[in-house]
């Protein structure tokens, strides 16, 4: 029985299948809201309200011709999309969906999450460099610069949460919030804002979509990808979107925990999880809708001049808060 239940957890709920479907749903929500902000309609025809459009896009891309550039580093070039998906699906498992802890939970899984985010950036860099083409090369360069700017504030804002709850385990942070109130109500509010800005950059969305700025460097590091590989990369990026919003909900909005009678927890907690993550996604999409893209030097200057000092301040505040 144990084997069956853990297999179910790993592959179906709250495992791979759940997260992949969720990533398609998130893409739909993102596109629909972005379109509404732009006085457009957005996906409409595939499925009710265009709900199946991301899946249709995925299938269409899989069917398309898959090209590998002649002078690319083929081993790396071909493996990056797979590695991206694998990395994202693995790190997803630490997210608590139906209870205090995720499918896997261990001391230090917060650090594992941070490492996975950095690894994702390194994979982007590899994708760009193995393409051996000017646009991906510039895109990869920009991705690394973005990493330099936003990885530190991201880590420091997560560190704030860890200090507040005194643990580097996701489930401990969630249960601490259940008893002490959400992190967002307190000195972590500043950290929450920094976290949102940093993940916007990490996800390469406007105003920080510099590594794949369409008008400047075509599709940036993804320029040479097509067909199946592009489909996988898009899925990995959607999964990253789910992961980042879910992480924000977990760290700052108390994860899936909420008011529910004991017998209904099995249904109520995933619903809370969905509501909170979608709320984060809506904030991210609104940010995406109301800004123009900044330039790479302006972005790095912004990160180092304002974001990093602020995140240090936030950590200091948390320490003082905890001592009192």
């Amino acid at each position: 029985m144990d084997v069956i239940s853990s297999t179910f957890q790993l592959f179906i709920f709250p495992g791979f299948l759940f997260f992949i479907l969720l990533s398609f749903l998130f893409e739909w929500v993102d596109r629909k809201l972005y379109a509404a902000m732009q006085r457009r309609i957005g996906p409409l025809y595939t499925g009710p309200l265009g709900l199946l459009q991301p899946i249709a896009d995925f299938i269409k891309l899989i069917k398309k011709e898959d090209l590998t550039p002649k002078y690319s580093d083929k081993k790396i070039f071909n493996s990056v999309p797979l590695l991206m998906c694998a990395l994202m699906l693995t790190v997803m498992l630490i997210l608590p969906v139906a209870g205090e802890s995720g499918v896997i939970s261990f001391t230090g899984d917060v650090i594992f999450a941070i490492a996975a985010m950095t690894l994702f950036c390194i994979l982007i860099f590899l994708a760009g460099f193995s393409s051996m083409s000017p646009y991906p090369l510039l895109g990869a360069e920009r991705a690394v610069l973005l990493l330099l700017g936003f990885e530190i504030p991201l880590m420091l804002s997560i560190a704030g949460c860890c200090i507040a709850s005194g643990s580097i385990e996701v489930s401990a942070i969630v249960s601490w919030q259940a008893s002490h109130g959400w992190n967002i109500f307190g000195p972590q509010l500043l950290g929450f804002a920094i976290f949102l800005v940093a993940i916007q950059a990490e996800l390469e969305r406007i105003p920080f979509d510099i590594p794949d700025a369409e008008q400047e460097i075509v599709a940036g590091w993804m320029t040479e990808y097509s067909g199946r590989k592009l489909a996988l990369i898009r899925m990995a990026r959607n999964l990253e979107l789910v992961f980042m919003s879910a992480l924000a909900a977990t760290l700052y909005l108390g994860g899936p925990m909420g008011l529910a009678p004991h017998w209904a927890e099995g249904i109520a907690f995933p619903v809370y999880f969905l509501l909170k993550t979608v709320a984060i996604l809506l904030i991210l999409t609104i940010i995406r809708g109301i800004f123009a893209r900044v330039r790479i030097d302006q972005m790095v200057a912004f990160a180092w001049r304002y974001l990093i000092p602020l995140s240090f301040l936030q950590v200091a505040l948390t320490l003082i808060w905890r001592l009192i």
Partner: protein
Amino acid sequence: MSSSYERIFNLPLGPQHPALKEPVLLDLKVEGEHVVDVALDVSYNHRGMEKAAEYRTYVQDLYLIERICGICNIAHTLSFCQCVEGLHGKEIPERAKYLRVIAEELERIQSHLLWLGVAAHEIGFDTFFMYIWLDREISLDLMEEFAGNRITTSYNAIGGVKRDMTPEVANKMKKGMDKLEERVKFYKKVVLSERTVMKRTMGIGILRRDAAIQLNAVGPTLRASGVDMDARADDPYAAHSLVPFKVVTDDGCDAFSRIIVRLDETLESINMIRYCIEKLPPGPLLQRLPRRVPAGDFLTRVEAPRGELVHFLRADGSDKPYRYKVKTPTFSNLAPLREMLRSKGKYVVNVADVPVILASIDPCFSCTSRNEVVKSS
């Protein structure tokens, strides 16, 4: 020096690129993110229109010349008609002159709004882009009511215009102008208050006043460098000598002031259209002219939305032109463009700025392409 030279590599922007609406090759020499030099190749769209014009009669040419540019078709037909009318030495009816001004200014409004949308898209502000283009529909719908078509209108004819303005259309036009004025003022407020827009356009694509004059910039590009020059004011044609308007200039010399100049020009055009509707004189629309044009040379300057447009006609007394020559505003703005794209001293051009700078001159390359270079090797 040699070590820094090795770090320079070529980044070809175009002929196919998402930032470009038409084929053009900007061969950038890039050092990291900085553009050191640029080579321009605009000859991807040669259509042999000047030569084709020599094989057609003047009436047929009217439709050919209209298709030089989709967006500024009225400016092109206006120039052509003025050339022919000038050689005949005939004045066109007063009412037609006013209607030509209305058509021209309506075209300027839609062209400037189109450009503003494209500029917003180039700096990655897609929401702004979508908003502007939805409001541009107002001007296109008015154009359809007024001239019969949205873009390629066939409005001007040799000796006048083809369609009258009915009182209903005049009413609709007035209402549309009020709506457009409100929207354009809102966009100006957005541009002046949105920090990311300013960050991406201020100090970008600098063209100093003396350089602008020296390199023969035209249109809003020139006026954004603080030079008060407009063919409508300097060399009035149609009813421009009777319609009051202000030549908009700005001293910013950068992409941001080009946005401001175009927005203010749109507001000026709205006022001009209102004035023309108010003062529209009665009378005939068309002055019939003979098919054969007397021999002679004629040159006209028309202020197209993108800048000064020059048409030249040499007629030999037959019903076909002997030679027809068009100089589009984009052609004049190419040398200034190269100046804007090169880093010099403290002025640094980033790769990210290239699409913004390119868009800031409002290029229209297929109108500009006049020759084809075939490499022999």
